[in-house]
């Protein structure tokens, strides 16, 4: 156990001590934030205004503060959603670097078991993702909470953090399967560039996935990160939407809130079928479990030379 903890600590330190790597791993999140300041906020607000135009009789019941809260939380889910992809991937580049620089030989010549080596890479990457996302989430929630009412109870906050942890671990497990195929850190870095560019779209940080065609939605929702971001959006915004619904007083029979859920993707659409919260949880857990099994098989072959 001490050996596994020691190697996990080393893997964590290698990532956390490289400031450039940390900045690059949060690049997509920073871009999402910058785009939010530039135009995404007004785009989201316009989409809500358009939805309101369909319900003119409730317009006066939705305040600017509600719209602000919705857009802010949508931003937060986008930032966290993209960081759940980029942070674990970036941390897992250690696997490729270790192989390229023969550091793995130094590890293989110690009494640490092979499965502990694999698990330590997974643990360090998962932990760094949880650490970074936990910080972003906490700072985001505090800042949004200072500027308005989050309408979140303790159980909502607990589920937000639970979803975040699930997202970090499932992303890490998925990337653990992909990363062994990269032989050099430059190839791994090139893929990271693609990942950074695509991840914001896949999780719907720039444009809600529901705005895409069914086929594109299916492609986006193959990745568990999309499901996790939708789950996060649900957990973060349920209270706010319930409060808006309460303010409307039932005169639209929940139609406005339902249209917001459709526009900003609160359900996942895959192969023409709609997945609710439980379905998305199941899908993410299944991909997580399959990735874990595949990870152990892949790496057991990798360490037989």
């Amino acid at each position, binding site marked *: 156990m001490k*050996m596994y903890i020691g190697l996990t600590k080393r893997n964590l330190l290698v990532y956390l001590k490289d400031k450039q790597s940390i900045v690059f791993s949060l690049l997509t999140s920073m871009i999402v934030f910058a785009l939010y300041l530039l135009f995404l906020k007004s785009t989201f607000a316009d989409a809500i205004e358009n939805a309101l135009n369909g319900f003119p009789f409730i317009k006066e019941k939705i305040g600017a503060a509600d719209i602000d809260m919705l857009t802010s939380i949508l931003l937060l889910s986008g930032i966290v959603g993209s960081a759940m992809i980029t942070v674990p991937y970036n941390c897992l580049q250690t696997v490729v670097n270790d192989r390229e620089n023969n550091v793995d030989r*130094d590890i293989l010549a110690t009494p640490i078991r092979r499965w502990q080596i694999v698990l330590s890479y997974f643990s360090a990457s998962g932990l760094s993702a949880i650490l970074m996302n936990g910080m972003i989430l906490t700072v985001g929630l505090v800042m949004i909470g200072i500027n308005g009412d989050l309408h979140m109870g303790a159980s909502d906050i607990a589920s937000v953090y639970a979803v975040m942890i699930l997202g970090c671990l499932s992303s890490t497990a998925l990337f653990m399967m992909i990363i062994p195929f990269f032989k050099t850190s430059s190839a791994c870095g090139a893929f990271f560039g693609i990942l950074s560019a695509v991840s914001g779209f896949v999780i719907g940080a720039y444009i809600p996935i529901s705005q895409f065609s069914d086929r594109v939605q299916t492609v986006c929702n193959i990745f568990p990160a999309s499901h996790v971001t939708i789950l996060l959006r649900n957990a973060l915004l349920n209270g706010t939407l319930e409060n808006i619904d309460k303010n409307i007083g039932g005169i639209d029979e929940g139609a406005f809130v339902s249209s917001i859920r459709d526009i900003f993707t609160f359900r996942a659409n895959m192969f023409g079928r709609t997945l609710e919260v439980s379905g998305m949880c199941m899908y993410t857990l299944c991909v997580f479990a399959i990735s874990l099994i595949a990870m152990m098989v892949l790496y057991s072959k990798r360490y037989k030379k």
Partner: protein
Amino acid sequence: MTNAITVKNLTKKYDDFTAVNNISFDVEEGELFAFLGENGAGKSTTINILCTILDKTAGYVKVFGHELSKDDDKIRNLIGIVFQNSVLDKKLTVGENLMTRGAYYGLDKRQIKERLEPYMDDFEIGEIWNRKYEKLSGGQRRRVDIVRALINDPKILFLDEPTTGLDPKSRKIVWDHIRKLKEEKQLTIFLTTHYMEETADADEVKILEHGNIIASGTPAELKTRYASSKLVWYTGRSDSAEDIIKGYDHSYDADHYNIKFTGSITDFLYRNSKVLTDYEVIKGTMDDVFLNLTGREMGA
């Protein structure tokens, strides 16, 4: 003396390529054992197999009585390795690198610090403890690498071309440390190198070529067998001198004859002691051994 390592018919193949071809040898406890050969001769492959990093294709290996492939964990606890290239983390400090590596052997902080204590002054680790590994000079990095290899208190230290890329001064410092370790800790040292002069202190040298051992013995034995000694006789060129060295391979340079001897030189000196007033005897080098065995100079 007991055997630290026993290797019988060791073979390593990669598809059609044979990296190590049916080699056998023993390494006695406490000796400095050297593998000499060019890049690609199979030196690092053999070390990687003995250190449990690579699987062998065939053969039998025992390290301090533990059989390879059966008792790998026990072997790993008994060995320390200084790799050809540094394998420590550049962004971490020397202290962080050594503390994390110590944990790989199940040691806690206190135990690691106890293990490191003797090396803090000897290897001047104390003064660079908080410096990032990437900021160290080549010589300092090698010193840290050696200390890292010693952290589990190994019985055998593998040195895979430990001075490659170092300047002569750093190379000398590293070798001073290695000699001291051998003397004070009675460590068995398994060295691979392509620097001929580094094998001079070895108790046993094996020369590898294309995965095969082509010669073995102490450096003196190898020189006697495969290198010719040279007599440099300072005298003017004359017929009488030519008569004396007739039958020996010789040449004349400026003010002296160069005379090559394949066997003992003593008889010749004794027989001609009256005329040999100014001379020097130059023993064959390991370079000559390698040249004679492979038909080419090292690195050529």
